[in-house]
């Protein structure tokens, strides 16, 4: 937690200029017509210039674009944490912990597969709350157990220690990865209560949507896979769409699960088209696409209703993430030969 009084006005003022630099719809339309090298050149003339130039000697093609996007994202989000104090810092940091979780998972996977530290480091997105020194120390260890010890003074120590016992029994990383993801989601709503109005209410609603959508994705994936996994193990508390027993029951009946989401007052209308397609579709991808779009819609509301609250900052975070995902999707899509329509329909969310 950062010391000092909360400063949402200052952070929002700084964020506004950053938001203005985000790619507009017409930029995406231009990018969709370019090849990977054209996209890299285009990025060189924008916000991404520094990262493209910095990484240009080490990477090329779409890898250059992807690493430049990740590095740029990390730089912007680190700035947000630098600018903010007090409650604003706390609200931003708790959302950016997803990058800590990403980094910890990447490091643990690297240790698990004996990947050299330099290669692991390349894949990190240093945008979270964890200190640089902690990440550097993590990169030096050779055993997962030692990595957990390095995290001794962080919130991840306890869940990882518990999951480590299961990991030792099974030999697969699933318990460790799930413990990290669960830790992120379950602390999203810490100390926020259930405000009924004002910017906090909107902020909480957004985070609840994030948790609900994650629960919905996991439930649908479990229902589809027909695996004997215990749904309760993947249930995240804090959402409004399911409670634990409901989710465990619904996972066994795919159609009922889809009905339950469709009948939800909060999300039913937003997701009705995607849910209609989902009943007969073989793939969950379109539904996940619809969830991403719905979440983005939420984030737009966050910025427009309370423009100087932390919600507006969160909205910027989501918009920036979306920009990175869109550019990466276009570049990768072009690399593998997808045509403009396919990229626009299946990949880009505007």
């Amino acid at each position, binding site marked *: 937690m950062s010391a000092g009084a909360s400063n949402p006005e200052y952070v929002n003022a700084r964020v506004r200029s950053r938001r203005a630099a985000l790619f507009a719809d017409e930029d995406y339309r231009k990018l969709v017509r370019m090849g990977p090298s054209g996209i890299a050149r285009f990025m060189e003339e924008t916000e991404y210039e520094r990262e493209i130039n910095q990484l240009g000697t080490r990477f090329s093609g779409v890898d250059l674009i992807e690493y430049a996007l990740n590095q740029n994202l990390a730089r912007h989000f680190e700035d947000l944490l630098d600018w903010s104090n007090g409650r604003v810092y706390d609200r931003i940091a708790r959302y950016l912990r997803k990058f800590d979780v990403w980094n910890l998972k990447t490091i643990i996977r690297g240790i698990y*597969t004996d990947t050299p530290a330099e290669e692991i480091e390349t894949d990190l997105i240093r945008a979270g709350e964890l200190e640089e020194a902690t990440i550097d120390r993590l990169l030096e260890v050779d055993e997962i157990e030692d990595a957990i010890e390095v995290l001794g003074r962080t919130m991840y120590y306890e869940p990882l220690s518990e999951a480590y016992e299961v990991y030792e029994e099974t030999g697969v990383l699933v318990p460790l990865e799930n413990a990290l993801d669960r830790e992120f989601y379950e602390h999203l709503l810490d100390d926020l209560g259930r405000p009924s109005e004002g910017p906090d209410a909107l902020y909480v609603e957004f985070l609840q949507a994030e948790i609900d959508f994650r629960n919905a994705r996991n439930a649908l994936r479990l229902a589809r896979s027909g695996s004997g996994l215990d749904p309760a193990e993947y249930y995240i508390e804090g959402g409004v769409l399911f409670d634990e027993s409901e989710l465990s029951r619904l996972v066994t009946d795919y159609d009922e699960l889809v009905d339950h989401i469709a009948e939800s007052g909060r999300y039913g209308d937003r997701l009705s088209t995607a849910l209609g397609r989902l009943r007969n579709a073989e793939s*969950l991808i379109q539904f996940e696409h619809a969830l991403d779009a719905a979440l983005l819609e939420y984030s737009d509301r966050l910025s427009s209703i309370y423009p100087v609250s932390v919600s507006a900052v969160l909205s910027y975070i989501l918009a920036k993430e979306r920009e990175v995902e869109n550019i990466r999707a276009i570049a990768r899509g072009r690399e593998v030969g*997808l045509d403009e329509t396919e990229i626009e329909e299946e990949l880009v969310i505007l």
Partner: protein
Amino acid sequence: MAKDVKPTRKNLMAIEDRIELSERGHGTLEKKRDGLIMEFMDILDKAQDVRGELSEDYDEAQKKINMARAMEGDVAVRGAAAALQEHPEITTESKNIMGVVVPQIESSRVSKDLGQRGYGIMGTSARIDEAAEAYEDLLESIILAAEVETAMKKMLREIETTKRRVNALEFKLLPELYEGQEYIEQSLEEQEREETFRLKKIKEKKEQEEKEEAEAEEAEEAEDLEGGQAPPVGSAAGGN
């Protein structure tokens, strides 16, 4: 070759035995070849189906992984792939199709459920699940294709070998044996004719000799008869 054989009755019998064996072998090999071809045609159909499925599975897997790389990023996909160290287990046994030993490949732990893929479920998406599933299907198809195509190649090799043996018997060994048989038979016949001729000649000679002997005897007898009427020359000379 035929001329190298000594034209004896014993060799003729040996050649006749070899001909009988070769003809029987030729018939059996022809049947084996036809049977192998029929089995091969079945395997070929299966191989074509498997190849088609393999090609479809490959396209599907590539599409799925491309989509996952596009939406989740290459780093996330690589990360998810790195979360599993365990490799599928592949064991090979063998089975016999008309004397051809072909492999039977058994695989385990190729298709996995969500909990066995190594990556955490909460932090990943259906795109990664579908890419992983598509690659598991592809691996299953590759294993099946490896089994069927290896069997097909082995069958093809066996058909070629059998065909060569049939052809060798039909166009090389048997004609040579027939030629040898004919040569020996002809030679024996020739020898027989020569023998008959020789015997005939001997007989003729003998008869000639006998005839000459008989004639000589006759002449002697005639002389003897003539000598009874006139004194012998010796006695006349002795009288002088």
